[in-house]
């Protein structure tokens, strides 16, 4: 199974600013999602895309909505499927709130020091 691994922290620095380490503000979230979408398109033969948040500091509701919720909604046909990895407790909390708003829910699975989550409708 072909996997596409996207490091969100690297995307943040490339798409928005070299000096940023936190996912805050809606414009930042939009810029990161657009960049991720381009990477997904470039690896269109990959069935699964792993979005890695392990080097991201904090993520606010606006970025959780723009990045996680909108990505899932735009690919609700499951092509590709997403695995969001390296999430902290506060990341999951923000994602939980925004998914609920869109009538979605998440299932989470702990794995060593990182939390891995998959999103489901």
């Amino acid at each position, binding site marked *: 199974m072909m996997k596409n691994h996207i490091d969100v922290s690297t995307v943040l620095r490339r798409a928005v600013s070299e000096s940023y380490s936190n996912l805050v503000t809606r414009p930042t979230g939009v810029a990161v999602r657009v960049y991720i979408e381009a990477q997904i398109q470039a690896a269109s033969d990959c069935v699964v895309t792993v979005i890695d948040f392990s080097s991201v500091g904090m993520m606010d*509701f606006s970025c959780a909505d723009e990045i996680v919720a909108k990505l899932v909604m735009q690919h609700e046909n499951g092509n590709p499927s997403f695995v969001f990895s390296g999430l902290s407790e506060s990341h999951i909390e923000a994602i939980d709130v925004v998914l609920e708003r869109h009538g979605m829910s998440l299932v989470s699975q702990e794995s060593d020091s990182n939390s891995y989550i998959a999103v489901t409708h």
Partner: protein
Amino acid sequence: MTNVITVPPSLDDATFEQILEPLSRLQPDDKVLIDARHARWASPYGLTALLALAQTRLERPSLAVPELEETALYWARAGFFKYASDLYDVVGTVPRGRQNDPGVLLEVTPVNASEDVHTVVDKVQQRAQQILVTELKLDKTATMRFTMALSETCQNIVEHAESGGWVAVNSYRWQKRLGGRRVLVIAVCDAGVGFRKSLESATGRPRSDRWDDGMALEAAVMRGVSRFRDTGRGQGLAGVRRFIGKWDGKFSVRSGTARLAIVPTWDEDVPLQKDLPAFPGSQVQITIPERVDR
């Protein structure tokens, strides 16, 4: 004629109403002197709201500096005069506040654009951990939630105010309330369009005859209603409200003529106040108290 408005000795969100009451009777182009000579203390809300006040005046207002050196020095260290001198004709001696005050987690900072929110979050993150965990005895995850709350309240200015605003974060010990516990206070004030006008800008949203500032605050803060059609919008302040509850904190938002507060058991504020003196924009305050094991 100059209209003199006296700043109360202790300036916070409650006593700021004593400034707004006489101010609301004046025309926007009336000359005003904000007399802070006898002020002894000001919360982050007091300082940021004073800056927002100046932005509402068509005629440049004057500000008389606190006479008590300790007070003036604290205001200087909190970064107040740095911006007050752009907005007010400052009367009196402004001390140089070179040294940082240990209680000032974030000095008065302008918020005009999304980049400013990044700057604010980056600045407070490190020191927030120390204050929240060591002084307020909250668990380590509180730091992330705290910066999220700060980010969302600042974004409220960028997304809805249609003007710039101000943020400040201080930690201090309450002398009389809560048995002398420490508190961390975030204040975010702007003199922009406010919640009611922001929501009214959404086309096709039906409004009842009772539509007013209070209803607009309830819609935005309690139900996450936004002027945007995107269902993902409007989660910021509603999300902040959840966090505050977990910390037994207090969250209040004033806009126009109304003020809504999420009131914890330790406070005696009222949940919704209407018919207050009109003041443009929105003024948000978050109070997080030191945790005590019961």
